């Protein structure tokens, strides 16, 4: 698949999730010939991130995580390479990979998504077993294996946002009891109004879960390298063999460091998904694009936004003007 390095492509896409997949389709709708290369850190071809909770809960099999046919990349004439894109030279139009090889591009799309934020917790160490985040397939595979091997019956989820609650849902499906800890006074505070939060809260409690609001984890206690309990700000201690941290995601915008590309929380893009550097686009959870309502930069890290921004970025990369603010379909 990956033959020559130090190559030149018409379209280079960094990232391989929903924004990238939609960008591929967007480009191919307008340009059938131009060469497309996808660089992704993840060693999986195509899978749906929102499905990982269903996979964790044994509702679906590993193969069902693929939402595009196996032939998708072949049909779209796309090459996929597993590597980490380290840095970017906007003037020379080159992206440098982790192995110091580089790829020249005509148009570039940064669709690197976000990474889970790890808050400062006393006693937190990456090597401790039983600590997880929940945003990619790697996370789900590791969590699932850990639960099965250690016969985990109870888990703590820190953060009651979309990711935290999807993790909780998957754990419950797997037969694991869940304690959800949220710093705010209600769950899904960024998604719902008070009534909406209340409905989901009631459902969570009905499932036999414990919900602790207005509180957070200050320290983790371990025994022989494994987590045994967490201590909350209120002083309460909860024994658990498994902790899932889901307090938020941070855009993976490191690639544009030391370039002229403007970032705020994410990479700032205009309504055509172009960054402040012509020819370089960003889409999905890494991009901060004008909001449909107030036209101010906003970053809402959900599938529909990623799909739409990816697709429109693809159109614009292929030279057709499309706008994220245009809803006349």
């Amino acid at each position, binding site marked *: 698949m990956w033959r020559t390095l130090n190559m030149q492509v018409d379209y280079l896409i960094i990232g391989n999730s929903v924004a990238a997949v*939609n960008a591929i389709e967007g480009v191919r709708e307008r340009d059938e010939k131009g060469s497309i290369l996808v660089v992704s850190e993840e060693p999986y071809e195509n899978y*749906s991130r*929102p*499905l990982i909770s*269903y996979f964790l809960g044994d*509702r*679906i099999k590993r193969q*069902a995580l*693929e*939402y*595009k046919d196996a032939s998708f990349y072949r049909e779209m004439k796309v090459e996929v390479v597993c590597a980490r894109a380290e840095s970017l030279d906007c003037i020379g139009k080159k992206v440098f990979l982790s192995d110091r090889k580089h790829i020249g591009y005509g148009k570039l799309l940064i669709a690197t998504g976000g990474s889970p934020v790890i808050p400062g917790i006393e006693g937190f160490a990456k090597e401790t077993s039983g600590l997880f985040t929940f945003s990619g397939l790697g996370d789900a595979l590791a969590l699932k294996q850990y639960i099965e091997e250690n016969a985990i019956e109870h888990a703590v989820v820190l953060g009651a946002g979309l990711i935290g609650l999807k993790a909780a849902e998957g754990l419950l499906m797997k037969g694991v009891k869940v304690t959800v800890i949220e710093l705010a006074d209600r769950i899904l505070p960024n998604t719902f109004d008070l009534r909406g939060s209340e409905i989901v809260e009631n459902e969570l409690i009905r499932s036999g879960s414990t919900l602790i609001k207005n509180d957070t984890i200050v320290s983790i206690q371990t025994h022989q390298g494994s987590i045994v309990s967490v201590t909350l700000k209120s002083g309460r201690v909860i024994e658990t063999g498994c902790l899932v941290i889901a307090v938020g995601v941070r855009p993976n915008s490191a690639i544009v460091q030391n370039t002229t590309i403007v970032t705020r929380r994410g990479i700032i893009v205009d309504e055509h998904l172009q960054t402040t550097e012509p020819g370089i686009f960003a889409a999905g959870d890494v991009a901060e694009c004008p909001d449909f309502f107030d036209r101010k930069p906003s970053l809402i890290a959900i*599938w*529909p936004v990623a*799909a*739409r921004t990816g*697709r429109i970025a693809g159109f614009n990369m292929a030279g057709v003007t499309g706008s994220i603010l245009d809803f006349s*379909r």
Partner: protein
Amino acid sequence: MVKKIVAREEYCIGCRLCEVHCITAHSKSRNIIKAYKGEFPLPESALVFEEKGAVSFALQCRHCQDPLCVENCISGAMRRDPSTGRVPYQKELCVGCWMCIMVCPFGVIKPDITGHHIKSKCDFCLEREKPACVEHCPNEALILVEDT
């Protein structure tokens, strides 16, 4: 040439035979009497029937060229088949997240609140010559036209 179903509210009298024949066409026996008298549960009609005063019409999946349900489907259960121009729903792939229901601008996908999938969505009666709702509409209030 891809065809689409067009509703003509000026001819619709609100008899709802389109729904009866949609249900029949998707029943086990495909026989109106056997289905209605002997099958339980009956499938849900894939039409959304709108009525206010003298104005009425029935609407089904538009099989959009650029469908929002497909763009937003997290599992690949909604796909557009470019060879037929249709948007079939594959239940076995569906996890019941209902994003398709949230984003459909026509509101023609119906949720199943007991199971984790969707209850009905127009399949354009692909194995029939004409969709059942079009074939049985007594007033030609539902017609097939070439999609331009």
